[in-house]
């Protein structure tokens, strides 16, 4: 078995899993972190697709990252490009899109690529947590 759900590993503390939030707005990363940390998740941040790819390829994250929450409109490597990379290289890590611009065509295309949820800002904390929890379940199923 090469991959484990990170909750088993984080030293001594209760952790429901590790989430990477990718968004160019520090404010968004701040509130998403706040919401998810309160729900017991370990949260990592990246400010664009390039940084996100760097982060997932760093050390234990290769194995321990459970869910990615990703914006679309970002500098350098944008959300679409980053998602394509994650789907190809980390197909077992569920992806949630959190975008400021609702675009039906884009949502359809992303869901077809295997994105598990397409959330439009502003999204309520409960809705975000439910989405991440569902993605975590999917992640666990991927290990079975």
């Amino acid at each position, binding site marked *: 078995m090469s991959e484990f759900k990170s909750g088993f590993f984080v030293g001594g503390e209760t952790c429901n899993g590790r989430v990477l939030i990718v968004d160019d707005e520090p404010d968004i990363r*701040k*509130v998403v972190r*706040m*919401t998810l940390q309160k729900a017991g998740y370990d949260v990592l941040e990246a400010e664009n697709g390039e940084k996100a790819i760097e982060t997932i390829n760093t050390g234990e994250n290769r194995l321990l990252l459970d869910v990615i929450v990703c914006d679309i*409109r*970002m500098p350098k490597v944008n959300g679409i490009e980053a998602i394509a990379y994650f789907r190809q290289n980390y197909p077992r890590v569920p992806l949630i899109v959190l975008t400021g*611009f609702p675009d039906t065509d884009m949502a359809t295309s992303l869901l077809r690529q295997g994105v598990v949820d397409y959330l439009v800002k502003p999204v309520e904390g409960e809705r975000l947590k439910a989405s991440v929890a569902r993605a975590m379940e999917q992640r666990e199923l991927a290990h079975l």
Partner: protein
Amino acid sequence: MASPPSTRVAIVGAGRGGTALLDLLHQIGTIEIVGIADLNPGAQGLQRARELNVPVYEQVADLVGNHGVNLVMDVTGDPAMEQRLRDQIPAGSDILSGPASRLLWELVQHESALQAELLHAEKLAGIGSFAAGIAHDMNNPLQLILGLAENLAEERDLDTVHLQARDIIEAVKRTTAICRDLTSYSRRASSHQDSRVAINSKLDEALKIARYAVALQDIEIRKGYQPDTIVKGNPDELLHVFVNLITNAVHAMGDRGTLTLETSAIDGVTQVRVSDTGCGIPPELLGRIFEPFFTTKPPGKGTGLGLYNIRNVIHHMHGTIGVESQVGRGSTFTLTFRHQSDPEDRSVRP
């Protein structure tokens, strides 16, 4: 090669009609205005003519008697003027006066109103493309506000409450700034007289607006501004021109590249340059880009009126617009304005 001017026109009467006629005819390359005459030395058309380097006369005879005039346009509204002109004009020249002159004046007014309508319509059509940018800029602060408010409902630490409440206030201010920018941009260009416009800050304002229409985050923006660069024109129309040139440049680059904005004022000539490192324009299309309804964009993506309207605005300001382009390397649009000295008016509009 441009053909030589074919019609030499003299304008008699420098009131509103004469001024409008002067402004219109001055934009037409095949017409040479040999002068304008009015008994009233303070007439607005004479002032305008001086700005345009068109000779001014107090006496009609001095204007129409020579200069090889082909056509005298009488916009005085004085019924006796036509006969006086007939006695003074050289053989072979024509007079346009009375009802014909009145009709022409009405057509000029109509044309000017149509151009203003077209400009506004094209601007409103363009605002549709702002949706993505507006959504991004509105929904991000709204996400922050919602997230913080949800947290505040349970937060017990008073310092955190204060801090987050302040964050909410700042986020609300950001969203109101978006509405302010857009309502000011979407309004109809004010019809006030041309004023002195500070070009550098107008370009910066245009960048702010263009952010809604195009993704600028991967565009490197270089500015080469000469301080205190000023042109005379309508500030709202100039803003529209700059927004249009910037969004065109970014479209040409496919959201990645370098956008260069430059201004200069040398020897009475003021220039604004907008350059991109985009796809460039093929030489066979260069001559057509200012034509109305000419577009290389797919249906529904462009009205084909952007550059046409830009050229009209710039011509109305008695400036010129030029383009240099290399396929695969990029394009540079250059606006050139000859300095029009107006020592009495030092006011600069934002």
